[in-house]
C-alpha cells in the first residue's frame, strides 16, 4: 500500500522522465482543447458581440438561450455528437467518430455558449459607453462589431480563458465521442479516469499535476497581460 507522499513522488518522477506516451497524451489534449477554444471563439465572439451591441426581435430569447446553454451537460453533448457521427447518424459518412476531430466538435459545442454569453456581457457594457459616439461617427454595424471586439480584447482574453478551463477539464463528452483509444484519442482527463479505475494512481496523479500546472500557467499569463492592459487603460 503506497502512501500519498510515495505516490506523489512517483508521479513527479513520471513527469520529470517525460516519456513519449505522456508527451503524446498532453500534446493531444492541448491540440483538442486549443482547437475547440479557437473554433468557439470564431463563432462565439461575433455572436456574443451581435447580441450585445444590437437590439432586434428575439434578442431577449437569444440571451436566455445562450445563458441556458452555458450549463450544457457534457455527457448530453457527447451523446448528441455521437448520434450525429455514428454510422447510422446523418454525419456518419464523414467517419469522424472516435477521432480527435469528433472530440473537437463536442468541445466546441460545449464552449461556444460560454464564449458567446460572456462576450455578450462584455460587449454590452462597452457598447453602452460607445453607442452615442459610434452613432455620431456613423459607424456601420460590421465596423461596430469589429471595433467593440478589438477594444474589449483584453477582457475577452479572460472570456477565452473561461472557455479553455471548461474544455481542458472536460471528460464526459470526449470519452463518448473519442472512445479513449490509446495513441489516438486518449487525452489527459480520460487517461486520469481510466488509470484511476485501474488503480494506476501514479500516472493519474502525474497527469492531474500537469493539468493543474497548465491551468495555472495559462491563467497567470492571461492575468498578467490583462493587468498590463488595465494599467494602460486599454481594459
Amino acid at each position, binding site marked *: 500500500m503506497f502512501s500519498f507522499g510515495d505516490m506523489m513522488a512517483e508521479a513527479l518522477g513520471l513527469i520529470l522522465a517525460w516519456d513519449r506516451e505522456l508527451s503524446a497524451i498532453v500534446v493531444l489534449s492541448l491540440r483538442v482543447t486549443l482547437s475547440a477554444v479557437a473554433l468557439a471563439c470564431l463563432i462565439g465572439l461575433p455572436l456574443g458581440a451581435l447580441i450585445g451591441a444590437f437590439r432586434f426581435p428575439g434578442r431577449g430569447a437569444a440571451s436566455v438561450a445562450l445563458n441556458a446553454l452555458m450549463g450544457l451537460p457534457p455527457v448530453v453533448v457527447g451523446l448528441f455528437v455521437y448520434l450525429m457521427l455514428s454510422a447510422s447518424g446523418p454525419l456518419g459518412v464523414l467517419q469522424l467518430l472516435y477521432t480527435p476531430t469528433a472530440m473537437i466538435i463536442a468541445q466546441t459545442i460545449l464552449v461556444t455558449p460560454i464564449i458567446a454569453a460572456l462576450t455578450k456581457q462584455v460587449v454590452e457594457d462597452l457598447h453602452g459607453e*460607445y453607442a452615442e459616439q459610434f452613432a455620431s461617427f456613423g459607424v456601420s454595424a460590421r465596423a461596430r462589431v469589429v471595433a467593440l471586439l478589438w477594444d474589449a480584447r483584453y477582457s475577452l482574453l479572460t472570456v477565452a480563458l473561461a472557455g479553455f478551463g471548461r474544455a481542458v477539464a472536460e471528460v464526459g463528452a470526449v470519452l463518448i465521442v473519442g472512445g479513449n483509444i490509446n495513441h489516438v484519442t486518449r487525452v489527459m482527463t480520460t487517461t486520469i479516469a481510466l488509470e484511476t479505475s485501474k488503480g494506476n494512481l501514479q500516472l493519474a496523479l502525474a497527469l492531474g499535476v500537469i493539468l493543474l500546472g497548465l491551468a495555472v500557467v495559462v491563467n497567470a499569463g492571461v492575468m498578467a497581460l490583462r493587468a498590463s492592459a488595465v494599467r494602460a487603460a486599454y481594459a
Partner: protein
Amino acid sequence: MRDTVMESAQDCAAPILTARDLGFAASGQVLLQGVDLEIARGRRTLVMGANGAGKSLLLRLLHGLLPPSSGAVLWQGARPGRTAQAMVFQRPVMLRRSVLANLRFALRVQGLGWRARAARAQEALEMAHLTDKARQPARLLSGGEQQRLAVARALVCDPEILFLDEPTSSLDPASTQMIEDLVNAAHVRGVTVVMVTHDRGQARRMGDEVIFLHAGRVAETGPRDQVLDAPRSDAAKAWMAGRLYTRTDF
C-alpha cells in the same frame, strides 16, 4: 432614423439647418416642443438656458442621434452625409486605443485610405498640440487633453457643421482657451458651430447667435449682443441678471 429633408441647391445665404416644430417626448413627458429655429451657415450659434431646458436634447435631435417625436430637422445646401457633421460630447468618449488610433478610427469610418489617414491624423495631432502624446493611451490623458482630442477627432473628418455639448464645462481656463482656439480655428475655416454653454463669458467670446431655451421651448433667439445685453423673454432676463429661477417660474 434621421427625419431630414435634403435640398440639392446649395446657397451660402440659406441656413444650413432648420428645425420646424421640433418636439421630443419620453415616458409620457414632453421634454422639447414647438422648436422653430435656423442655424446660419458659417456662424457660431450658442444654445443657452438652465439645466433641464432641453439644450443637450436639442443638440442630439439636430445631430440626428435621436428621432424627433414631432416636427423635422431640415438640411439645406450640400447633402449631409456623415462627413458633413460631427459632435463633441460633454464627457469625451475615448476609445480604448492610443491617441493616434482614436483619430485614425474616425478617419477609417469615413473610408479614407491608410496614407490619407496617417497624414490627416498627423495634422490633427499638431492642431490639438498632442503630437508628443500620439502613442499614449487616450484614456490616460488629462480631462483637458481628452476634450482636445475629442474636438480634433470631430474636426479631422472635415465636417460642415460641428455640434459641441458643453465641451468646456469641467475644464480650467487654460484648457478652455485651447478648446475655444480649436473651435474658432474651425470656424475661420468655414465650419458652422453649434455649441451648448452655460458660461456667459464664453457666450460673449464665442457666440455670433444665441438660442435661449426655457422649459423645452425656445424662449428667445437672436444676435449675441441682443440676447445677452437686452433680453426680451423673462427667462433670459432672469438668467442674464443672474437671478435664481425654476422651470415653473415663467
